[in-house]
């Protein structure tokens, strides 16, 4: 008997040239175009929601076939709210209250391979328990969406926010996008599916929502009408499905040394393709919602000499500190990283190359590494530039430690003194650490 040949399900023709990110990266000037006329904008309704409820609200509107999750602080807000929608018959979703996070992602994998849109949500230790399945999801090219309410990793046990979990996830092949407010958590929850399911991408997507600072913060959230959300995300129609009984397919094959390398290379190309795809999806979303987002968000960088790089909800405070520094004559600016994976290096280069000193704010420690996580990303991005700023690493806010205005002002003055002294030291400053 012959052995049936299967088509490789992991083919894609995406390539990764930097020019596909944006037509021509030119500093931040071209990026911060928030005033573009948007004729097709659908009116949103303002309501008060915390970040967790905002994500649940988006999930009700998207109505994925599967939501599979296991409770963990600070993610519980999402699944409790969604369980109410489910119990009230407002969604046709199958809500699977599984017995662990590993099982949650496993169920999403089975569901996604069966042609369904599958969503999970977790935080810190739950993500750590899922770890094995993170690579399985991306390696099988399944566009599962996860809402990751970023939380510290144990031990010591700590339920509060930092980015240790998200940073540990970086090498697992997921698209990762970070928001800074309940509004962004909501908007990104919608855009997530469009990016993940794009035929050039077909990769899982993590929506990073800062634990407590965003998940539990009640703010005004402008929500789109249900039909606008449904219209924007459309339906998931994969090429192959386990439920296609006439065309049986084998998912999750074993690779020998003959093919594994090639499959991983294809996966890399697909993840790189997610950059331009994400930018396009955010632009399309802006046309519908009137809310425009970039993969990196620049603040007062054009004429700046020093800059701070940040990811997530600290951005607002960083901008306040930048304004205060400007008032005292320091030419400061800030860059927020929205897209963590694929890391938008061309945009980071365009935004930062002209500065003298850049401080990178990490909410995680890169234990024993040559640079803390975000710092290392920024350093690697800038390395090949003929002229590049000096770099300085800051760590802040581990395990929910608040970062005050004073800490950020001290970081800015440290950058300013590095600038005037003309040299950087490869040391890390821990902001707000008790002495």
């Amino acid at each position: 008997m012959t052995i049936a040949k299967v088509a490789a399900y992991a083919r894609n023709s995406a390539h990764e040239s930097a020019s596909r990110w944006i037509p021509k990266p030119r500093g931040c000037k071209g990026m911060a175009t928030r005033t573009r006329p948007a004729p097709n904008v659908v009116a949103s309704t303002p309501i008060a929601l915390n970040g967790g409820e905002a994500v649940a609200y988006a999930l009700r509107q998207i109505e994925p076939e599967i939501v599979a999750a296991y409770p963990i602080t600070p993610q519980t807000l999402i699944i409790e709210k969604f369980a109410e929608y489910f119990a009230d018959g407002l969604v046709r979703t199958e809500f699977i209250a599984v017995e662990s996070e590993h099982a949650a992602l496993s169920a999403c994998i089975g569901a996604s391979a069966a042609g369904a849109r599958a969503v999970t949500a977790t935080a810190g230790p739950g993500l750590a328990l899922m770890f094995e399945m993170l690579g399985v999801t991306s390696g099988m090219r399944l566009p599962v969406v996860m809402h990751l309410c970023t939380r510290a990793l144990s031990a010591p046990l700590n339920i509060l926010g930092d980015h240790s979990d998200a940073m540990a996830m970086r090498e697992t092949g997921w698209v990762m996008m970070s928001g800074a407010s309940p509004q962004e958590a909501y908007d990104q929850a919608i855009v997530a599916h469009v990016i993940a399911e794009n035929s050039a991408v077909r990769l899982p997507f993590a929506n990073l929502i800062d634990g407590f600072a965003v998940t539990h913060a009640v703010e005004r959230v402008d929500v789109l009408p249900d039909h606008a959300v449904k219209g924007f995300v459309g339906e998931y129609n994969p090429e192959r499905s386990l439920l296609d009984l006439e065309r049986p397919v084998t998912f999750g094959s074993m690779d020998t040394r003959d093919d594994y390398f090639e499959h991983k290379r294809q996966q890399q190309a697909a993840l790189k393709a997610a950059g331009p795809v994400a930018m396009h999806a955010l632009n399309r979303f802006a046309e519908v919602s009137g809310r425009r987002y970039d993969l990196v968000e620049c603040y007062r960088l054009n004429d700046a000499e020093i800059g701070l790089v940040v990811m997530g909800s600290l951005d607002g405070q960083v901008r306040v500190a930048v304004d205060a520094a400007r008032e005292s004559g320091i030419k400061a600016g800030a860059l927020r990283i929205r897209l963590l994976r694929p890391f938008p290096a061309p945009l980071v280069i365009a935004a930062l190359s002209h500065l003298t000193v850049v401080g990178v704010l990490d909410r995680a420690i890169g234990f024993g590494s040559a640079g803390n996580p975000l710092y290392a990303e920024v350093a690697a991005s800038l390395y090949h530039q003929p002229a590049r700023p000096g770099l300085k690493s800051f760590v802040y806010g581990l395990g929910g430690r608040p970062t005050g205005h004073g800490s950020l002002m001290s970081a800015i003055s440290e950058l300013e003194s590095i600038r005037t002294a003309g040299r950087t030291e490869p040391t890390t400053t821990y902001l707000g650490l008790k002495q």
Partner: protein
Amino acid sequence: MISLVTLKLQQLTLRPDGLSGGHGLCAGCAESVVVRQVVFALENPAVVSLATGCLEVATTRFPDTAWRVPVIHSAFENAASTASGIEAAYKALVRKARIEPRKFTIVVFAGDGATYDIGLQWLSGALERGHRFVYICLNNEGYMNTGIQRSGATFAGTWTTTTPAGRAVHGKPQWRKDLTAIVAAHGIPYVAQAAVHNWKDLLAKVRRAEAATGPSFVNVLAPCNRGWRHEPEETMAISRLAVETGFWPLYEVVDGAWRLTGASRKSKPVTDYFKAQGRFRHLLAPGAEKQVDEIQARVDAEWQALIARCAAFKPPPLEGGGLGAGDSKVPPPSNSLLPEAGVSGEGVTDGSE
């Protein structure tokens, strides 16, 4: 649909085959035999969730696949959760009118390591949630794919590479866990033990598992000649011996009612089983008598306990009261392929060919 009542071996060959030849399982391996029999037995087309193990690595080597039905392998421990995702996806896709309703049966194939040990939580969770699938445990009493290590299914005294027969410790010190009973304790509609040599019994059980309206579980003894140290052509004989010596009683639990199935019987001493396999060689050496006696005593005790358990469930009275057939979520055991067993299991033939 082929009625099981009239099912003949020849007719089986006309059923769609789930697996093609050319896979990489060892000659004499029971796993492919079980898989093909299971897919033969199903009334509906199968959609398969595989756990990591010999079966998976030997049948899905890219770019080939030996599977003629849709298959997903995700990881070692989570085949049951993967299956629950498939089941839930189907329900939601139909509810949203995204696909037409269709008939199919989700089957999980997982080894004893994947089932008794690393995947027990995933299995238990899926059973408790009540996802409808047929879970087949391919039980070869060890982690064979990684080189014959002990599992929770490995019998006391067995040599494996992590329980060697040393001078101080003679094979696995611990008794195996009674996983079939643990699964039955979940209160799912159908649970059974079967063995590869008794194809009629296995096929009938798979049919009944498929017909159950909730999760169902069949623990199938599947000798591994590499790990058990016997010749490839002896696989069926060894499997039969496991039943005859009481190591592997055949029974089913239908809606909580326990019953031996016809081929169960215990008529031979455990040493007959030991003599047939190299993994027990050290138990036949002088000095091992006490260990063997202890094993015999426990096998006897478990057999008596099983008989008592089954005796507690008398066949339902024809009218009213007790566990009436009308209450059952599974069709009553009226199948002629299951020769009616006396409680002792005496005087019946197993259906092996």
